[in-house]
């Protein structure tokens, strides 16, 4: 007899419906699984066999053929186990019901029949819903991820037996209740990284605020131990709160990577700090078992912090250039290409020189000019060009550290950031641009008219520091953000000057 069951596969973040078909026939007892399965899917045979036996059913002693359609799509992972098992029960007439139609089954089976959670449930559910599927059975362990999606009926089953009894109506399961994003946010604890713990560093704090307001990238340069990492860690706390749609998009990526936290949805903006030994594949996405999202995609909607920037492999850094411009990364492999969103704020930290003390008020630098040049040369001009704000973070005096004066907290800064973002949203209404940093030439001409005085200042800087055309455009964008923070319609000379001052590395001629 022949039977079929619906399941889902992932291609990047897009769900693809997969029909599992089983044919149980007379003949030599055998089991054949076709439809481009990878090793994990192939192994489903032994899991499914044991799970069926240990759930009190019998594995068909017949010629069994299982097909995963569409046959040309490469199938990976263990999420088909449940669908294969149900299909075999149906084909061997142990499960006599037509009610499996309209359901999508996802889940990995244990040898005892238990359902184990699988990765990528959220993007699969969302795509499936958009394709018109409304009823799902998922492993109990994935229920938290499924509870934020409205308009679907999700049933969380603990094992194969529960699934079967649900379908036949013997013991129907209760759908997972829909939970609001606000409820998840409510569970959120206080961010341990807050700007109020950062002492001094007025210049860096200001640059950080500007960077977050306009979605610009930030480079913090300073001697070791001066608070670069602390500042960077506080960035997510001043970023605007996640909207539900943003949270879903970010969680989708993290779901594929198998990390959705305890709430089943990300309530905070991600902060990723890949170590400088990271490979290009781990940074941009890839890998031998399908194309996994890389660090830049996991940082989508949040911050990618690269500490000790010159220590990263050059190829890895150069690979960031294109996603920095486009906000997406397309990873191509011989088996096909996958596009992941990668719209993140880049924050980098580095020392000014190998010994770390160049430009410090009190410590002498022992590096030779050649050493410093070599050190800075590890970061290519094109990458540096894309970092709009480059600020120095210097050591803090002892009195500043011990003073009782409470520094401005993240909440206060976030207020201003939210306001600047609101101005930008209204400005770019109806376009795909969301922040000042995303402006293209057309928008720059429209929204960033420079007075004669501003133009004069910019011309002088352009010629003196031999800036690139891109650097000029980026200075204007930063000036626009500074003007927004000052509630100014026009870009004033002071705004341009401040924007230019953030390009210290161009000035140093490095």
């Amino acid at each position, binding site marked *: 007899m022949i039977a079929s069951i619906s399941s889902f596969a992932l291609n990047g973040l897009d769900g693809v419906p997969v029909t599992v078909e089983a044919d149980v026939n*007379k*003949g*030599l*007892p*055998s*089991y054949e699984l076709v439809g481009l399965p990878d090793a994990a899917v192939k192994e489903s045979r032994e899991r499914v066999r044991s799970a069926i036996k240990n759930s009190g059913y019998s594995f068909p*002693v*017949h010629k069994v053929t299982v097909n995963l359609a569409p046959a040309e799509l490469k199938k990976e992972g263990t999420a088909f186990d449940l669908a294969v098992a149900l299909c075999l029960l149906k084909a061997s007439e142990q499960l006599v019901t037509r009610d499996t139609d309209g359901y999508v089954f996802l889940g990995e089976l244990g040898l005892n029949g238990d359902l184990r959670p699988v990765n990528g449930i959220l993007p699969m559910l969302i795509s499936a819903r958009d394709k018109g599927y409304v009823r799902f059975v998922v492993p109990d362990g994935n229920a938290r991820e499924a509870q934020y999606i409205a308009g679907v009926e999700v049933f969380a089953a603990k094992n194969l037996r529960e699934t079967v009894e649900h379908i036949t109506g013997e013991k129907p399961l209760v759908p997972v209740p829909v939970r609001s994003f606000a409820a998840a946010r409510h569970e959120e604890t206080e961010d341990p990284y807050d700007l109020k713990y950062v002492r001094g560093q007025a210049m860096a704090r200001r640059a950080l605020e500007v960077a977050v307001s306009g979605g610009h990238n930030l480079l913090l340069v300073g001697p070791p131990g001066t608070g670069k990492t602390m500042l960077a860690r506080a960035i997510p706390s001043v970023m605007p709160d996640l909207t539900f749609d943003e949270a879903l998009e970010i969680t989708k990526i993290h779901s594929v990577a198998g990390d959705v936290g305890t709430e089943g949805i990300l309530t905070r903006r991600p902060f990723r700090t890949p170590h400088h030994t990271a490979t290009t594949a781990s940074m941009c996405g890839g890998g031998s078992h399908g194309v996994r999202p890389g660090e830049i995609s996991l940082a989508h909607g949040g911050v990618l912090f690269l500490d000790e920037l010159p220590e990263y492999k050059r190829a890895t850094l150069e690979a960031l250039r294109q996603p920095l411009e486009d906000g997406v990364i397309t990873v191509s492999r011989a088996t096909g290409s996958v596009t992941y969103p990668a719209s993140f704020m880049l924050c980098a930290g580095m020392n000014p020189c190998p010994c770390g003390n160049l430009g410090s008020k009190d410590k002498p630098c022992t590096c030779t000019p050649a050493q410093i040049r070599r050190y800075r040369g590890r970061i290519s001009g094109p990458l540096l060009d894309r970092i709009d704000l480059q600020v120095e973070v210097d050591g803090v005096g002892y009195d500043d550290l011990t003073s009782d004066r409470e520094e401005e907290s993240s909440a206060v800064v976030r207020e201003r950031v939210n306001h600047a973002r609101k101005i930008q949203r209204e400005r770019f209404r109806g376009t795909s641009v969301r922040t000042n940093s995303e402006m293209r030439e057309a928008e720059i001409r429209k929204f960033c008219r420079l007075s004669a005085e501003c133009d004069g200042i910019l011309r002088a800087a352009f010629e003196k520091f031999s800036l690139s055309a891109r650097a000029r455009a980026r200075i204007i964008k930063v000036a626009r953000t500074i003007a927004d923070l000052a509630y100014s319609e026009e870009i004033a000379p002071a705004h341009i000057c401040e924007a230019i001052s953030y390009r210290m590395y161009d000035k140093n001629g490095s």
Partner: protein
Amino acid sequence: MRHSPQKFYKKILGAAGERRAAAFLKKQGCKILKRNYRTPFGEVDIVARDGADIVFAEVKTRTSDAFDVPAAAVDARKQRRYIDAARYFLSALGEECNLRFDVLEVTPDGVEWLKNAFEC
């Protein structure tokens, strides 16, 4: 070793085991179709009908459990032989039917019936 006493003893032991196994299957309600069914691929100890299934049974006889369990001796090569023999049997039969490969372990304690011991 060709005509050694050991070999002779093993032959007798095997034949006795197969007789016991056949009697056991009969008692369980199977119909014995063939004993020592010879094909170009090798010999099948017992071919029987168990309900709707045709059973190809390999009989393993042991006088002690000093070694491994008898079924462990049915290795991949022997399984292959049975599968080929079953194909040969099917083509001779000319009709589709359900097949099964069983192993019967004959020990002094009795007969152990391992249904559906392997598949292709």
